[in-house]
């Protein structure tokens, strides 16, 4: 099994994540799609580490995970606060700022 498949898979996941950001309304789900994109990147990194025969990619995946976790915390705090205000997690509801 060639590692290229993993690259394709990760590209697919990344795309699914990006499309998810565009089409989903719930802020939490949008955010999960972003996380999906990050994890797709992790898969890419690990695959390249495998192809190139180094460990750098794997360690980078650690960093990405940690950063993603921090991002989750900040993101959920923000989303939670606006959810409590609006009683709605839909990103389409927050469009006071426009034009």
């Amino acid at each position: 099994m060639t590692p290229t498949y993993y690259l394709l898979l990760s590209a697919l996941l990344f795309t699914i994540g990006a499309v998810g950001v565009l089409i989903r309304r719930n802020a939490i789900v949008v955010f999960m799609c972003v996380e999906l994109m990050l994890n797709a990147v992790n898969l890419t990194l690990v695959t390249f580490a495998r192809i190139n025969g180094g460990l750098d990619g794997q360690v980078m995946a650690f960093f990405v995970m940690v950063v993603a976790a921090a991002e989750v915390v900040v993101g959920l705090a923000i989303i939670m606060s606006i959810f409590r205000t609006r009683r709605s997690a839909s990103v389409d509801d927050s469009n006071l700022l426009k034009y």
Partner: protein
Amino acid sequence: MLDPYVPLVLMFVLATAFSAVSVLVAPLIGPRRYNRAKLDSYECGIEPSPQPIVGGGRTPVAYYLTAMLFILFDIEMVFLYPFAVTADALGLFGLVEIALFIATVGFAYAYVWRRGGLDWN
């Protein structure tokens, strides 16, 4: 030829034995004081929904808070693993660095603790 695996097997056996003993022995020797919570179905440590209170039986925010804190501190530990594996090679420098790292996490911990992030209610 099996030498390298002997400690592994031993570890495996010990772990199984320990869990079996803990589970089996506890009902026998532990005190039996039942309350409502203990009889409830288990759901991540919170009271199961639906609840009769306001909010439509949603999960309390405190749950998120704790979960978030757990994730954060848990995931930071990912760096301890590579350090532990190469602790010998890294020597004193590595030790100092990881101590600094843990201290940094400790600052955040102190903040969370002092500002009541760990209070359940």
